[in-house]
């Protein structure tokens, strides 16, 4: 492991000047960093800078050496009463832990990753950050639009001609008009029935009237007022009234008679005679 090698290669110098056993060089380096602490983007950035001072491939970097440099930096900052952001201190604590792991023989009872694993991961992080920085630089060094190559100076805006055609048919128009003009008198669609007297109407009319006629009365006299003049109306009234009398005869409420073909049809009330079921009625052949 590089860190062990480092320790062998660079034993702490015995200059006696520091209580923490750091070299003058490290102290100077730490002081130099202090000056520019604001220039670093966090602990990882600082660590990367420290790692670079080793002037080796990042893969061969001595994490231990770097950790020591970092800790020296933090110590120095404390001595100079420089406020360090919390994450610098968190990193310092973590590196102190890492350092102890790297220096002490592994404790088989202890759980968790080994110092080497942690160091390797930190090395990976540093290498990855360095790689991203290199490649960011490569990216920015590419030919860039608006700097090295250019777009069309007079782009012709694609005119989007949006034509909305509104459709309305003559039918729509007429229906709309009809809708407006009839909106307060809507009724179900029926054939125009100005000249139609329905059997229901006839029946209703006759039910109210037959009670009063004990004698034979001409069918025509049951026609509603105003329905005996116009041919169409008369025809309709005749048919309806006749049909109604048949119904009433069937119910046993009237009797019908007719002198002969095309003779007037006469009817009279059967009075309060028992109203039987429909099927008891006599055949009304005489009416036919």
């Amino acid at each position: 492991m590089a860190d062990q090698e480092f320790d062998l290669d660079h034993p702490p110098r015995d200059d006696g000047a520091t209580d923490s056993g750091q070299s003058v060089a490290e102290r100077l380096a730490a002081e130099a960093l202090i000056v520019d602490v604001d220039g670093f983007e966090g602990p990882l950035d600082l660590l990367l800078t420290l790692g670079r001072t080793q002037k080796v491939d990042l893969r061969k970097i001595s994490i231990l050496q770097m950790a020591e440099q970092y800790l020296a930096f933090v110590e120095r900052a404390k001595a100079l009463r420089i406020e360090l952001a919390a994450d610098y201190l968190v990193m310092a604590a973590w590196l102190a832990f890492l350092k102890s792991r790297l220096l002490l023989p592994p404790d088989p009872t202890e759980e968790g990753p080994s110092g080497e694993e942690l160091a390797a991961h930190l090395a990976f992080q540093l290498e990855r950050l360095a790689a991203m920085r290199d490649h960011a630089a490569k990216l920015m060094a590419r030919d860039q639009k608006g700097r090295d190559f250019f777009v069309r100076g007079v782009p012709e805006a694609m005119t989007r001609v949006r034509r909305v055609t509104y459709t309305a048919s003559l039918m729509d128009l007429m229906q709309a008009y009809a809708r407006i003009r009839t909106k307060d008198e809507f009724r179900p669609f029926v054939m125009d029935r100005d000249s139609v007297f329905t059997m229901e109407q006839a029946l209703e009319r006759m039910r109210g009237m037959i009670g009063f006629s004990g004698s034979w009365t001409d069918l025509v006299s049951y026609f509603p007022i105003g329905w005996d003049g116009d041919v169409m109306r008369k025809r309709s009234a005749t048919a309806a009234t006749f049909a109604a009398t048949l119904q009433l005869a069937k119910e046993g409420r009237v009797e019908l008679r007719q002198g002969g073909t095309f003779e007037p049809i006469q009817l009279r009330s059967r009075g309060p005679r028992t109203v039987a079921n429909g099927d008891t009625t006599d055949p009304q052949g005489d009416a036919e």
Partner: protein
Amino acid sequence: MSDEQLEATELRQRPQKESLFEAPPIAEQERMVEAILFASAEPVTVKDLAARLPHGSTVTQALVSLQRRYEGRGVELKKIGDAWAIRTAPDLGFLMQKETVETRKLSRAAIETLAIVAYHQPVTRAEIEEIRGVSVSRGTVDQLLELEWIRFGRRRMTPGRPVTFVVTQEFLDHFGLENARDLPGLKELRAAGLLDNRPRPGTMPGVTAEDEEDVVDSDDQDDLFED
């Protein structure tokens, strides 16, 4: 000193350093002219081109050569005044438009308003509102005006001199009518079974007078339908 002056100065100075080299070959000059004209927001004068190209370049020759190269292409090199620009070939202008045709049904308010104008013209806005029973939004009228289906008619000679609306020839063409008088009257509509007489919720079906038309119908309508 403006940027342009600066540039010009630089360019003037460049030959001194660069005149050791020949002006670039004409093909290269052509490339340069092409790139400049492409990227420039405005037509570029020959003078300007000359200032931007390396010293000793024969701009006019490059332009002529480039123009020939673009002959019959989708874009062409055009002289505009004393400046040059690359422009879309005129016959391909249609590609620069994207026409989307949307067909929409006219709103109920619009069709009703249109119908009233058609049946009652000339008609004022107040009259339209009276017939429809609701106010007519400005947008509805504007839309019909825009469609050129209605237009302003003469002002009514009544207090306030309100404008009237009438239908247009465009309207008649669209609906296949010779004349607004050709529009069937209400009775004809009903007789033809065109009346959509489904009762609306809340309206009680009932027997009513058939001739209400005449009551509301103004003289205008008579004008229209009775000849």
